[in-house]
């Protein structure tokens, strides 16, 4: 076996796949024992492989990645499934009690529903789902109520947003049109890499939203990815804001970074 053959065999047969009984492997090993040049080549290969492996594994894990993944998985899993029904006779009386409790629960739910309807509160999930449809449709306008003229109504206060961020047709929207309680528009900003990022911005009075976000600013909020859409929601000055983009939450984290840089 010559040097080229031996080196090719040794290259191919590293790790656990090297069968001691393989005659070609035995011959290549014997060649290696006698050939100083091949030993140098093999040693160099191994050192370089280790160096490559070290660099390749040295990928910094983004801060908060595990939490974001757990949050996304939690959202995907949702509530735990109802266990299968037990048909044994000993359970019949328990089911009767259960029916009474369920009826009472339905009554309670109806009462809660009536209360919520009277107060016109909408869950943040409901709002974001509607906005996802709007994002898919690539249109802007009110979500649930009223007529909306994007040329006319522009929002005043969008705290902590960088100057490069352009909010289309939103200044003064909420102060002038209180009946237009929840509104959606497109937004765009320049990423650090120079790309233009477009998404959807929801602005709603805090009082209209149930289960609103806890974060007090965009930079303090945690981006969430779900079903192809990433969103970040925060609460500020009596309004709930939600920024949404297609795909991963990288653009939102970029936006948060820009906001942090601006505010510091």
């Amino acid at each position, binding site marked *: 076996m010559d040097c080229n053959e031996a080196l090719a065999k040794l290259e191919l047969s590293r790790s656990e796949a090297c069968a001691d009984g393989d005659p070609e492997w035995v011959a290549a090993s014997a060649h290696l024992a006698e050939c100083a040049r091949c030993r140098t080549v093999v040693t160099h290969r191994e050192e370089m492989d280790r160096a490559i492996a*070290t660099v390749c594994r040295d990928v910094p894990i983004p801060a908060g990645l595990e939490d974001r*993944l757990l949050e996304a998985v939690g959202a995907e899993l949702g509530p735990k499934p109802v266990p299968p029904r037990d048909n044994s006779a000993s359970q019949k009386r328990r089911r009767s009690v259960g029916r009474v409790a369920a009826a009472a629960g339905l009554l309670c739910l109806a009462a809660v529903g009536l209360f919520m309807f009277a107060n016109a509160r909408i869950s943040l999930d409901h709002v974001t789902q509607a906005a996802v449809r709007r994002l898919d449709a690539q249109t802007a306008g009110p979500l649930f109520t009223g007529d909306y003229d994007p040329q006319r109504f522009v929002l005043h206060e969008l705290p902590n947003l960088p100057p490069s961020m352009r909010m289309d047709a939103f200044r003064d929207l909420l102060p002038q049109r209180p009946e237009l309680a929840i509104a959606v528009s497109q937004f765009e900003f320049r*990423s650090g*890499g120079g*790309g233009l990022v477009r998404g959807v911005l929801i602005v709603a009075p805090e009082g209209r939203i149930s289960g609103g976000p806890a974060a007090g600013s965009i930079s303090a909020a945690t981006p969430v990815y779900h079903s192809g859409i990433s969103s970040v929601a925060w609460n500020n000055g009596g309004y709930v804001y939600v920024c949404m983009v*297609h795909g*991963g939450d*990288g*653009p939102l984290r*970029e936006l948060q970074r820009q906001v942090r840089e601006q505010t510091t």
Partner: protein
Amino acid sequence: MSDAHSSPNVIDLVRQHHALLFRYAYRLTGSVTDAEDLTQETYLQACRKLDQLRDVQRAKGWLCTILRNRYLKRLRDNEQGELPLGDKLATIAEPNPAKAAAFGIDSDQLQAALGALPEQFRSPLILFYFEEFSYQEIADQMDVPVGTVMSRLSRGNAHLRRTLLDAAHYGPLNNSAAISM
């Protein structure tokens, strides 16, 4: 925490394997944004297909298979004209270059060299040399014979070393470099 005999739980799988999956995704895509996106997609799909995982001890390979399939789907989608979102938004923090200083390798050079390889050579390299899967595990994940994995590893690694050494000696990498099939 799941042990080898308990039912698999995606929450545990996130805690145990998210760093590995992110590294794999990053080295496949070369983008932090896409890598995180891909990792999340992998876990969301794992939630939906968890009943396919019978043995928790094989979870790492199972998740890598899902991730690779998602990545390949993206490649196919991109061929139809859709660009990955945020491709230029984020650049990865530079790892400590001193570890590979003897060979003049840095993370960007390595990523460029990996990126120049076709996926069927890149994946086994990442999985074998950097995540320490066995030939058999890689063959299972890629659904190819072990001999094919060995051949791809050998050729891919030779190309990788040559490209990195050329870069060290002659300057920046040529991104159009391609391995001969």
